[in-house]
């Protein structure tokens, strides 16, 4: 082999090793590390986003639960209030109904009385009309039939009473 000198070879070896090391440092610092940091940052970001999303989800679930509870509570309370209001309303309604019934009864009574009164009045009126008619007829008949003798008798009767009264 021509040209191989041990010292040269060793020198070359050392130079090469140094070269490799320098190469390594350059590539790692300028190319590898930045990209790796980049990728790690992205992974972290994704993980954080996922954990954030998970936290958000759990928070949302918690909130939903709480809302559910509140809703239950409010529903219970509202139904309670509702029943009380209902009771009150019912009581008032009953009272009103009783009063109305009483009122109606009174009115009915009054109406009945009025009706009776009216009925009586009508009967009386009819009776009056009938009797009036009867008496008119009687008067007309009597006007025809009454004689002077009747007059005389009346006069005599009067004077008898008259003189008895004194």
């Amino acid at each position: 082999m021509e040209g191989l000198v041990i010292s040269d070879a060793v020198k070359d070896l050392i130079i090469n090793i140094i070269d490799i090391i320098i190469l390594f440092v350059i590539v790692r610092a300028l190319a590898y590390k930045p990209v790796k940091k980049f990728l790690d940052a992205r992974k972290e970001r994704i993980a954080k986003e996922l954990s954030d999303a998970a936290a958000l989800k759990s928070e949302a679930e918690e909130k939903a639960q709480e809302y559910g509870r509140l809703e239950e509570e409010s529903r219970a309370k509202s139904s309670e209030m509702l029943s009380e209001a209902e009771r009150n309303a019912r009581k008032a309604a009953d009272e009103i109904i009783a009063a109305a019934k009483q009122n109606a009864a009174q009115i009915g009574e009054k109406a009945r009385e009025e009706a009776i009164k009216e009925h009586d009045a009508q009967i009386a009126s009819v009776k009056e009309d009938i009797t009036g008619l009867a008496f008119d007829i009687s008067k007309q008949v009597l006007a025809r039939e009454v004689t002077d003798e009747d007059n005389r008798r009346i006069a005599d009767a009067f004077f008898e009473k008259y003189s008895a009264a004194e």
Partner: protein
Amino acid sequence: MKKVVITAASNMSEETYRRICDGFSQKIGQAEFVRVTDDGIIGGFIAEIDGEIYDMSIASQLDRMQREITGNGGVGNAGNTN
């Protein structure tokens, strides 16, 4: 002298009228008698002596009867409420 007004129907004769007047004269003495004819009283007579009225007319008796039957005055009924 007292004034007496006798109201009678036309079916009363003069005789009966004289009888009435005499009857009154016996009771109250001298009086002036006036006769009013009213057929509306139908029969009998109404005598008014110085404001005092003695009603022996048939019409009045009938009215009295009518009033008794109907229980109330014919006049003054409240109108029918129909």
